[in-house]
């Protein structure tokens, strides 16, 4: 048993729902008790979809157990097919139905339904949401793809690509897709199919027509792409175009497979990140310490952008998906740090507190952690929140995605000149710590909230804020303490930690003014 307060991923059948809800004319018959219908609200409330997810829940009760749950499944499947008239259905079990072993696959096979039935085996007690989405998409592709398809020769026609991976409830999938289509249009590449988002089961049958695949979200599409590679001899572009550098590589990769000229796409004049980053006012961004956590794809991309395109220092990097831990470890090694691979958000909170970053790039979980610690934050990855579905176009991919990322990451920070003013005039009453960045009231850090520390976390995680408070009482002289408070809040944590480490290393039993400035000199960069 694992003790959890919040989870980064839902169960695997929620992943299957993300695929089913993204597609058209596909229906999901889910053997599940009442209550599992909560998952509908993820789509209707968080993503604000105006349609119910295409899911029929069989809704069995305690009194049905051991009697007619199989019959309930068959009735629900028959009714769903009659009412919604789908081109295909997927069938499976949620965690509870998995235990009663009704075998939805066998049951539906015996029913001679008038449409293809794709059975799903999603082990709820071993796997999670992203794996469920990936497996579902793979099974759909495998079952429906027409294997007799012969691609006509390339001569005299544009290259054709499948775009694989976007789903419902994905982080900015809707907008990323627009950017990818733009790039492909500039390269003269035809889109054979986008899947799962917007695809019908009939569309999937034509998947073999494409010359190659573009794997936008490996967490969801990699498994299917590998099968397509084997079956149809379709190579895959696996570069995820998040960031300017990655977008350039992506364009080069696609151009090579398509035999196209990359110049028009590479010359996109709306790519502003490079100049915005070189502009002198951005100098203050240099070596800002960032902590990055998310799904593997977005976390790795964020680390590269942080290092290579904004000049940040990555002081923490991790992901919650063990399946993709290798990529994250490799990127962490390039940053000279150790990757944090965990799905325990309390461990992440502890790591953030210990790293004392100036900016957190994470999921909704890290947004809350950062809020509590008073650190600026931007969201870069699922799990998502209603705020991650903005009304405006807000991609992460392509050059426009990089523009969006520049704004999103830089805005929460205290700006260059303001940073200097804060340092120079600490005692100005309007520059109180609580005020935070003057242009961004919503992100104002609060005083370390006492209730946040008094309610001890559940897992075996010490509460760093409480520890710090204790040390400060015994270690710091009153004078040094006052001087420390003159350091702006966004670097004070780091200054304090460095000074204390320095004092410990030097064997000084007390931190006075001298120690504080000796430490400052010691850590000068």
């Amino acid at each position: 048993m694992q003790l959890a307060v919040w989870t980064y991923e839902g169960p695997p059948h929620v992943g299957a729902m993300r695929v089913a809800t993204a597609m058209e004319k596909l229906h999901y018959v889910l053997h599940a008790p009442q209550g599992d219908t909560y998952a509908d609200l993820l789509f209707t409330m968080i993503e604000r979809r105006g349609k119910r997810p295409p899911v029929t829940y069989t809704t069995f009760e305690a009194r049905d157990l051991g009697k007619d749950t199989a019959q309930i499944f068959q009735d629900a499947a028959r009714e769903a097919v009659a009412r919604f008239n789908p081109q295909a259905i997927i069938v499976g079990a949620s965690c509870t139905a998995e235990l009663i072993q009704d075998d939805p696959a066998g049951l539906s096979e015996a029913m001679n339904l008038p449409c293809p039935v794709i059975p799903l085996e999603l082990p709820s007690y071993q796997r999670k949401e992203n794996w469920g989405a990936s497996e579902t998409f793979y099974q759909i592709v495998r079952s429906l793809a027409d294997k007799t398809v012969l691609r006509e020769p390339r001569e005299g026609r544009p290259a054709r690509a499948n775009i694989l991976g976007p789903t419902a409830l994905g982080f900015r999938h809707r907008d990323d897709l627009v950017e990818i289509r733009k790039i492909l249009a500039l390269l003269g590449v035809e889109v054979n199919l986008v899947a799962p988002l917007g695809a019908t089961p009939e569309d999937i049958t034509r998947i073999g027509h494409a010359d190659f695949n573009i794997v936008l979200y490996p967490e969801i599409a990699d498994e299917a792409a590998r099968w397509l590679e084997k079956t149809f001899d379709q190579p895959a572009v696996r570069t995820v175009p998040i960031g300017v550098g990655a977008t350039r590589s992506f364009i080069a990769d696609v151009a090579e497979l398509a035999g196209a000229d990359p110049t028009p796409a590479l010359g996109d004049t709306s790519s502003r990140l490079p100049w915005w980053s070189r502009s002198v006012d951005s100098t203050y961004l240099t070596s800002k310490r960032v902590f990055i956590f998310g799904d593997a794809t977005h976390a790795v991309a964020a680390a590269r952008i942080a290092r290579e395109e904004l000049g940040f220092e990555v002081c923490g990097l991790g992901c919650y998906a063990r399946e993709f831990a290798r990529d994250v470890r490799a990127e962490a090694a390039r940053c000279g740090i150790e990757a944090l691979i965990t799905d325990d958000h309390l461990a992440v909170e502890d790591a953030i507190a210990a790293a004392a970053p100036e900016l957190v790039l994470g999921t909704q979980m890290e947004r809350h952690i950062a809020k509590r610690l008073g650190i600026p934050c931007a969201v870069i990855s699922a799990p998502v929140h209603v705020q991650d579905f903005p009304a405006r176009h807000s991609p992460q991919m392509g050059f426009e995605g990089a523009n969006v990322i520049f704004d999103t990451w830089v805005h929460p920070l205290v700006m260059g000149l303001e940073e200097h003013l804060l340092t120079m005039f600490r005692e100005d009453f309007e520059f109180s710590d609580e005020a935070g960045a003057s242009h961004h009231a919503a992100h104002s850090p609060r005083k370390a909230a006492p209730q946040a520390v008094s309610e001890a976390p559940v897992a075996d995680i010490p509460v760093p804020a409480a520890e710090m408070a204790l040390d400060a009482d015994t270690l710091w002289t009153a004078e040094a303490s006052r001087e420390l408070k003159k350091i702006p809040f966004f670097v004070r944590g780091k200054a304090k930690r460095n000074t204390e480490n320095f004092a410990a290393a030097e064997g000084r039993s007390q931190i006075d003014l001298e120690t504080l400035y000796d430490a400052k000199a010691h850590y000068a960069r």
Partner: protein
Amino acid sequence: MSALDILDGCAAEIARDDQTPATATARPVLRERGQREVFCGLTGIIWLHRKMQDAFFLVVGSRTCAHLLQSAAGVMIFAEPRFATAIMEERDLAGMVDAQDELDRVVNRLLERRPDIRTLFLVGSCPSEVIKLDLAKAAQRLGAVHMPRVRILNYSGSGIETTFTQGEDACLSALVPVMPASAPDAAKQLLIVGSLPDIVEDQFLRILAQLGIDKVGVLPARNARDLPEIGPNTRYLLAQPFLGETAMAIEGRGAQRLDALFPFGAEGTTSWLRAAAREFGVDEALFERVVAPGRERARIALSKLRPQLSGKRITFLPDSQLEVPLARFLQEELGMELVEVGTPYLHRAHLARELEHFGPDVRISEGQHLDRQLDRVRADRPDITVCGLGLANPLEGEGLTTKWAIELVFSPIHGFDQAADLAELFARPLRRRDLLEV
């Protein structure tokens, strides 16, 4: 297609109910069975863990349970909630480890980390019920170790047994056996049953004190280790209409229920307070003097909202079991027309007085077959449909105005001074619909 065609066409029985108490007219109830779009009983934890400040709720379940709790909470409550999930994994199910040992380990660790916990609820879920993990046994065993510091209780919030607010019913039922017994010769005392927002609870206690009824207990108490006494001298008032099991447990301890309307709106609240006043021999003149100001305030406040709601047609989809008393309030005090009142479960005895107010044209449905019910909504086209979060936007997308039912559970809506707030919850979506020009 008229609604009646659909009624005839569906397979559900339309039954005359033999168990209806003599006070209620026997009326047909459309009983349905099929997909239900409702929360399971675990969802009650979201308000119960805030109501009982010394209690912690540990769900023994799956990743789905944990995901439900964080999704139903809407925005995650990041001030360390007093609930968590012990997520069962493959090795717990495959018998590689003993689930009871694992539970001991998790509970011991939890109690070590949270010395502030005085009552721990082990909450059963669908998977724990299906594998017959005996949480009563676990509560007993762990209780023996941790009492007196921590009392350990258990109940089931599983979706195979409980619907949404029935989770609170199950939780309170678990508290009844540990309520201290009152002395056999103790004076008559009142017990209010059902969790209310603190502000509403305080209002009721103030009014009851003014009536001279000052031995009043509340279940759940804000401190779960400070439960009120109970015994044959106890008279209880239900503050919520979804507490059938709790009522039975309470009566098992000798207490008697005071029959009244539920305290929604001026009339409901008056009826509810009057039931207590009568039982405790409060003088009619005193009752009038104490109750009149609040009732008048409620009437004045409601009169401002009545023009917006009067004549508007409303359908309730089954959700919290609050549907019947709320429908009565909206019809009687705001002049709304009831099209369909759906409820997950119709407690005929507790709701008898409420149902007396419904005319023969009001369609009452119990249980759910979601797609058929949505067909009826589309045929009826009510002015407003009360439904769960999964359905609200899709119905809005079809041009039907909706009210999220969950807000009715999470807002202070009982009593005189909340009557207009309650009406406003229904008026606002209609006003917004008229306001928007996009």
